[in-house]
């Protein structure tokens, strides 16, 4: 053969294969004339064409079924019809006289035939030739056909039997005259009554078949006939399976393409009517018919396909991912029918209508309801009734009316319900809690655990049933925050006194599990694994029954990660979400991203850059963007986000130092609880903190100034003024302000839009040193405290620096390099000589919050070298020698140490924010530490990395504390029942 001949060979081949095999020879002879070589060439190709499936098809058809992907159901290759015997009128197959062809189906030609024995007309479905040559297949087919033949129901077209005659195999079927439902729909939507009547009969047919264990598998309008008397007949029951088992194209049971005589592709299990499990090639049971039934019902009501698409894969995508257009249903559609459709279209077969009998009853009700012209009452569901609670708020009253709505648990339920929970009587909203630490919904959605403060000022864990008006505190949970539930709803985990604890939800002795230094979330799985975290910590795990804890994530130092926070288990109890927080530059910490990983994995996957505390429920990942709660479809098996994030709640309160610890919670039953409120970026919000003077007993002496978002509090040495940082909501940065203590007035001290963090006073009170990041990293600047004069650079280099203290002789400024984590070190800037900074302590651990003693011999500081923050004292060498010894001051954790000016006491904050006082003596060469006393609960803001939250008057008798203001006016918790419905608007 030469290349020149090829186009002609090709053309002839292509023309010949279009013809019936019997005519091909004649065609070739005519077309090739006396060119025998050409004819042989084409004929040899035609010979090679007869194999039905070549290995090439095999190669190309291996997109595996079971893959959760559209392509799984697109076996590519089978695009030619199996050769079937062609019969013409007058032919006889056994006792059957062929009358006329009726058409072609996926399985072969169908003929009208006359049964000469029983004197009736039947439909003969002639099977492909291969049945004749494969005894095994034929035997299998025969057995199946016998089972099908046992179906006897007025709405099912009967299978009379199987006829074999002269090598031709044919199914003998009941002949139903009349249009198919597809024909009928093509003429336009049916009247409601007609549609329901038809659907009712289809349901009846399915019910009869299902009772015999027979699944149709290919229910569609084209398989449903409407006989002249209006009786509906469902055709081809179970043939899809028979065909499946008999098929050559065995692709592990996935639906497959074949061709009809019209050349149009169809899939056995026709694409538009396939259930999701069918589309995925998964094992099928009767619930696949229920899906298809839903498709038919939808189509008779609307005149359009429930899941349409231009291409097969579009259609399948639609089946797997989308809801039908509910708006297309006629307004007159009874609510029962709408609900029935929604329940037929549950993608997860376990949630679908379980029994077609239920559908039949619904249709009966709907028809009856229409007959008597009244709205159709909602039938009580047989399935589990979930509790959904709602408490209604009246605008004027401090009165909550709780009521329990019993709604069916149906994710496809049409509506979401919003309501509010008022604070429980007797419990005031505690101050000083990061929003994410305030409350938690139980997984069953029946109860709320929240942190409340009683009339006596004791803050503890409270539990409130959502159908009750009041909650009650749990004894033994004093100081609790950050509640989280066990998956069985029986226990509540919480944080108190720097420990992770658990307690029975009905009360009892708490169990202490582990130490922790932070309150950035915890989660509990069904295997009794609790994940928690702490300041500067990766996610750690501990058994709910106790024992040692161990890390399950690793901070990525290269990415500047300083903490992994807000662990949240996914439903498999193995994978979990968390938020990585950190700062590459050592500057402001920020959320680096929401990750997913697994208990037994070192791999992790970034889901959302930035982000907030994230949770999962109902197929969605929830997280915050600013104050907007977003939901984004999330495939927990493939750990992949889909589509776009959609807002579901606004003005959700957020806080924490990263600003992204949002106040919301989820049940596993479709309830969302969230609290609205102000942003609390960088610690306290600009409306919720108050500078308050306390005496040593914790008695408030007086407030200073108005409520605002104070931070970085620093008293001037004379105690008459203070500096604070204040968050500018417009610029979203902090500036330094001066506060006049006597008059309570504050004036702005820095003005540009850069971020400022720390400030220290010169011993004479004339100058203030502060830092700003206006050159890309935090540098030290100074300015006169009168506010006049320019800002002067004091120390500008490539590092992030935080001014901490100024020695009382005025010669040294102590500053931190790196704000948090292991990179934080303490350095000293001499203000004389060459002014070359030197380290005070440079260790693999994090040292922060150093303070000179008044005599300049000691520095008290905070270090995490023991694994948690403790307060230590070490000698200070003006020559930069590394201290050779140190003394631990705090005993069970401590931060933010301060000296009394006479050096006889050191104050610090315990992990539970109580102010502690340690008697010390630094007059000798060895430092002496005496008794440590607890003074009072400062209610200082709990943040991931609290900065200067208090200061001490020079005499050590009064404390200026940046407390969270009492916040009784805080908005109630909003409940959204069936929140996924918000996404379906």
């Amino acid at each position: 053969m030469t290349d020149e001949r090829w186009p002609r060979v090709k053309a002839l081949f292509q023309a010949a294969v279009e013809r019936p095999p019997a005519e091909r020879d004649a065609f070739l002879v005519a077309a090739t004339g006396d060119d025998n070589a050409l004819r042989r060439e084409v004929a040899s190709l035609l010979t090679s064409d007869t194999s039905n499936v070549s290995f090439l098809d095999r190669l190309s058809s291996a997109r595996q079924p079971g893959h959760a992907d559209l392509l799984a159901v697109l076996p590519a290759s089978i695009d030619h019809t199996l050769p079937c015997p062609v019969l013409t009128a007058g032919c006889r197959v056994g006792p059957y006289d062929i009358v006329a062809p009726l058409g072609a189906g996926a399985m072969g030609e169908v003929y009208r035939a006359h049964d000469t024995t029983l004197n009736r007309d039947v439909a003969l479905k002639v099977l492909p030739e291969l049945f004749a040559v494969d005894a095994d297949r034929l035997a299998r087919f025969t057995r199946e056909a016998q089972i099908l033949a046992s179906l006897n129901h007025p709405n099912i077209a009967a299978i009379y039997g199987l006829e074999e005659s002269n090598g031709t195999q044919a199914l003998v079927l009941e002949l139903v005259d009349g249009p198919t439902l597809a024909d009928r729909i093509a003429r336009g939507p049916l009247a409601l009554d007609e549609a329901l009547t038809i659907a009712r009969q289809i349901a009846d047919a399915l019910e009869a078949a299902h009772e015999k264990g027979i699944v149709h598998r290919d229910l569609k309008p084209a398989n449903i006939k409407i006989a002249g008397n209006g009786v509906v007949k469902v055709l081809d029951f179970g043939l899809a399976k028979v065909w499946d088992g008999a098929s050559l194209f065995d692709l592990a049971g996935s639906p497959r393409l074949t061709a009809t005589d019209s050349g149009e592709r169809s899939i056995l299990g026709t694409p538009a009517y396939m259930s999701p499990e069918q589309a995925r090639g998964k094992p099928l049971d009767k619930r696949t018919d229920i899906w298809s039934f839903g498709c038919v019902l939808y189509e008779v009501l609307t005149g359009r396909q429930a899941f349409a698409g231009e291409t097969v894969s579009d259609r399948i995508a639609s089946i797997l991912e989308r809801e039908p257009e509910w708006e297309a249903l006629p307004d007159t559609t009874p609510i029962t029918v709408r609900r029935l459709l929604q329940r037929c279209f549950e993608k997860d077969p376990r949630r679908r209508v379980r029994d077609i009998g239920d559908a039949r009853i619904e249709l009966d009700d709907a028809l009856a309801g229409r007959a008597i012209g009244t709205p159709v009452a909602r039938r009580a569901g047989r399935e589990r009734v979930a509790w959904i609670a709602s408490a209604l708020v009246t605008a004027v009253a401090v009165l909550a009316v709780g009521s329990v709505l019993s709604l069916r648990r149906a994710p496809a339920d049409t509506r979401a319900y919003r309501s509010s929970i008022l604070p429980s009587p007797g419990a005031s909203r505690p101050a000083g809690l990061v929003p994410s630490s305030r409350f938690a919904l139980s997984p069953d959605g029946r109860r709320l655990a929240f942190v409340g403060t009683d009339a006596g000022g004791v803050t503890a864990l409270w539990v409130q049933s959502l159908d009750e008006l009041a909650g009650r505190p749990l004894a033994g949970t004093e100081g609790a925050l950050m509640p989280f539930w066990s998956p069985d709803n029986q226990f509540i985990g919480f944080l108190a006194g720097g420990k992770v604890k658990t307690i029975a939800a009905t009360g009892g002795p708490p169990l202490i599990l582990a130490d922790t230094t932070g309150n950035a979330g915890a989660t509990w799985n069904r295997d009794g694994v609790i994940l928690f975290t702490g300041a500067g910590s990766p996610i750690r795990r501990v058994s709910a029954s106790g024992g040692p804890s161990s890390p399950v994530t690793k901070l990525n130092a290269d990415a500047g990660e300083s903490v992994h926070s807000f662990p949240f288990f996914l439903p498999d109890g193995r994978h979990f979400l968390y938020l990585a927080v950190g700062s590459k530059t050592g500057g402001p910490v920020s959320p680096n991203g929401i990750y997913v990983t697994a208990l037994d994995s070192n791999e992790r996957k970034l889901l959302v850059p930035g982000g907030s505390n994230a949770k999962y429920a109902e197929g969605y990942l929830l997280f915050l963007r600013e104050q907007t709660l977003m939901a984004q479809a999330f495939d927990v098996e493939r750990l992949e986000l889909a589509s776009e994030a959609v807002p579901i709640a606004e003005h959700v309160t957020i806080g924490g130092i990263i600003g992204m610890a949002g106040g919301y919670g989820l049940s596993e039953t479709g309830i969302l609880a969230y609290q609205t409120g102000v942003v609390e970026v960088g610690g306290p919000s600009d409306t919720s903190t108050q500078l308050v003077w306390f005496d040593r007993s914790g008695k408030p002496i007086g407030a200073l100034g108005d409520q605002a978002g104070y931070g970085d509090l620093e008293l001037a040495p004379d105690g008459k003024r203070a500096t604070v940082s204040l968050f500018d909501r417009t610029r979203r940065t902090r500036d330094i302000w001066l506060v006049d203590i006597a008059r309570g007035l504050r004036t702005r001290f820095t003005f540009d839009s850069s971020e400022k963090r720390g400030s220290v006073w010169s011993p004479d009170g004339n100058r203030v040193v502060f830092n700003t990041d206006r050159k890309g990293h935090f540098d030290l600047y100074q300015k006169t405290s009168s506010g006049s004069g320019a800002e002067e650079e004091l120390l500008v280099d490539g590092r992030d620096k935080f001014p901490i203290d100024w020695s009382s002789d005025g010669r040294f400024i102590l500053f931190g390099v790196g704000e948090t984590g292991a990179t934080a070190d303490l350095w000293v800037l001499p203000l004389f000589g060459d002014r070359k900074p030197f380290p005070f302590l440079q260790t693999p651990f994090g040292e922060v919050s150093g303070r000179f003693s008044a005599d300049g011999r000691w520095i008290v500081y905070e270090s995490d070298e023991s694994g948690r923050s403790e307060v230590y004292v070490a000698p200070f060498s003006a020559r930069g020698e590394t201290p050779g010894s140190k003394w631990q001051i705090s005993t069970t954790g401590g931060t933010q140490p301060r000296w009394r000016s006479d050096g006889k006491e050191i104050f610090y904050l315990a992990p539970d924010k109580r102010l502690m006082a340690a008697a010390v003596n630094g007059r000798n060469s060895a430092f002496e530490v005496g008794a440590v006393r607890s003074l009072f609960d400062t209610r200082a803001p709990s943040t991931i990395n609290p900065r200067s939250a208090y200061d001490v008057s020079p005499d050590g008798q009064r404390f200026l504390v940046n407390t969270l203001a009492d916040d009784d006016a805080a908005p109630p918790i909003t409940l959204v029942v069936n929140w996924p419905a918000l996404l379906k608007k």
Partner: protein
Amino acid sequence: MVSPRDVTALLGDWSRGNQTALNQLMPLVYAELRRVAARQLRNERADHTLQPTALVHEVYVRLVDQRQVDWQNRAHFFGVSAQVMRRILVDHARRHGASKRGDGVRCVSIDQAKDVAASNEIPILALDHALDRLEKIDAELAEIVELRAFGGLTIEEAAHVLRVSPSTAKRDWRTAKAWLNRELGSEVRR
């Protein structure tokens, strides 16, 4: 590893006519396909099978954000992958001294005696050679075989990639199959 976003964007660029994007895309697809294929070829015991299009599909799932691409882009991806897959299989067959009758690459079993390959081995090298020959005679036929056999494209997808009508693609596919069946039939019998 490259992110699905990157690959998806490149795919989009390419299908909009940016050839540079293809140049960037090919190495990514090649690397990932080779990795996946190597893993499977290593793990498979002799009685297991290699399903090229399943591999391509796996890589597709790994590399492409499927929610972001339309089916045309998907077709292009599989088109690219088909070439790469063919090269990987052929390389593998060569390395493993496939010569004699089979190539050492065992593919989906073929249980039909009528079929050209009367054994259950896919003669990858033979197919490769035959495709080379076919390409000289009719490049479009060779390409459609590559797309469908190695990339797993449907008729519609292949038609889109080749810029022909689906009916033409369908006819060509049938023709190519017949041609290859004939060629390989003689080859395998040899």
